[in-house]
């Protein structure tokens, strides 16, 4: 209890990190629901890895063409954002384009993307020994190093994502649930698919920069997987997913702070715990429900 009071006090030294963590926890599940429903879960692994490759690539380019990048500089963060966003969006649009050509090999393509992105990340790191340690920190996500400026920027971008998701919820639902019907209704399905992918890409790239690929992937999938077992409407599914993500991030932060544990893995472990708990509850409910004669 003391930890919660301390964490919530206005002068808390890691306040920016806490806000960044909760923001990622709240917003990642909102795009994650579409990953789960459109059965693109593996994309949730591959895209954060692509964002990581983008960060490593942009810093390597800076090193090669501009010069050594100073640790913690503003240009550092901007380059990383640029690289993460470009690689994520490029990857997601390419995969979406290939998906239209045939669904048979979707998993294989996403698997290959993950493998290639992972390999590229390591290769880019190896080619940039000067900043390797610093880049490794960036790739892990620097939640604890979040500043007021970076949190404001993160909040602005993620707010824009949330507004777009709410404003165009019916279009995103229609193209996701019944793509053919959207075509029959004369909706611009390619545009809405592309916009949804864009929102996913932006959320993931900023999530990876703030919290790292592991935490981003965890928040993309674990809250929607738990919420799906508790809800029966699309709106409540999204709201409950986001709430689980936000609460999990807060509890994870408090636990990591209290017991001096690494933040990202703690948050992911707690998310997984929530999924297990909800699954067990659901199993119990079904087991105890009266069976029809």
């Amino acid at each position, binding site marked *: 209890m003391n930890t919660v009071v301390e964490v919530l006090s206005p002068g808390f030294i890691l306040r920016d990190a806490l806000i960044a963590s909760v923001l990622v926890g709240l917003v990642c599940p909102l795009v994650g629901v579409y990953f*789960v*429903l459109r*059965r693109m879960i593996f994309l949730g692994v591959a895209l954060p890895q692509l964002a990581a490759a983008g960060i490593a690539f942009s810093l390597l380019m800076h090193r090669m063409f501009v010069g050594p990048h100073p640790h913690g500089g503003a240009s550092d963060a901007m380059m990383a954002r640029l690289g993460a966003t470009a690689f994520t969006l490029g990857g997601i649009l390419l995969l979406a384009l290939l998906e239209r050509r045939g669904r048979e090999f979707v998993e294989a393509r996403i698997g290959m993307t993950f493998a290639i992105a992972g390999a590229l990340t390591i290769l880019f790191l190896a080619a940039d020994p000067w900043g390797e340690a610093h880049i490794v920190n960036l790739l892990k996500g620097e939640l604890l190093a979040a500043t007021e400026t970076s949190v404001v920027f993160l909040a602005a971008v993620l707010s824009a994502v949330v507004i777009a998701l709410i*404003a*165009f919820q*019916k*279009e995103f*639902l*229609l193209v*996701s*649930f*019944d793509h*053919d*019907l959207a*075509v*029959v*209704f*004369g*909706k611009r399905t390619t545009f809405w698919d592309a916009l949804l992918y864009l929102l996913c890409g932006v959320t993931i790239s900023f999530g990876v920069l703030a919290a790292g690929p592991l935490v981003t992937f965890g928040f993309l999938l674990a809250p929607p997987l738990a919420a*799906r077992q508790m*809800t*029966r*409407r*699309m709106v*409540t*599914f999204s709201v409950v997913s986001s709430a689980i993500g936000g609460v999990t991030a807060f509890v994870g932060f408090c636990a990591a702070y209290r017991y001096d544990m690494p933040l990202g893995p703690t948050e992911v472990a707690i998310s997984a715990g929530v999924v297990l708990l909800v699954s067990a509850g659901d199993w119990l409910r079904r087991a105890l429900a009266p069976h029809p004669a």
Partner: protein
Amino acid sequence: MCLLRLRDVSLGYGNRPVLEHVDLELARGEFLALLGPNGAGKTTLLRGIVGLLAPTAGSIEYELDRRASPLGYVPQRETLDPAFPLTVFEVVLMGTYARLSAWRRAGAHQHRVARHALELVGLPALADQRFADLSGGQTQRVLIARALAAEPSLLVLDEPTAGIDADATAAIMGVLSRLNRDDGLTVLLVTHQVRVLQGVVKAVVWVQDGGAARGGLEETLARHTMAAVL
């Protein structure tokens, strides 16, 4: 008045033609069925008519403005993913999106239209039920309600009675027959179950060997049954 006109239409996938030189007219208020053996191209023709497949040659003309007077489309129900957490009402409400622009949300009018559509198919009591939990026949009727919520001038159905029991089939055909007879709704459906058409449909289009020919139900069936026997 002619509602839909196909002129010398060819349809296919990639370099593989399925149907060639199809001419077809559908009059307003008509109830027409596309019949034929499995794999003959019935669904391909239907996909061309609703705009899911572009013709490789010829033209498909819809006499009304598709925005002002959208099509009601009922797909084969297996194409819809039960993983989506949606109630029956939410699914039916989707039909009203046909007339809503991107910035407009479904309001009181759209909710009324969706509820009325559910009443038309006799399932208002299932509004809050999970869509994924419905039986095959109920799912099909909900999808018909969704198509009706678009307030269409033409209702197009792809195998609406496939894989469902006799009672549910009778209920579905009863709903379609009533909508056609009482409300003047034009209906076009694909089926391979000839029995369900008796007493409901007068004209059919027989699809076979890359072509499509229109005729009366009884004479078309007699001709093709005879051809199969011979």
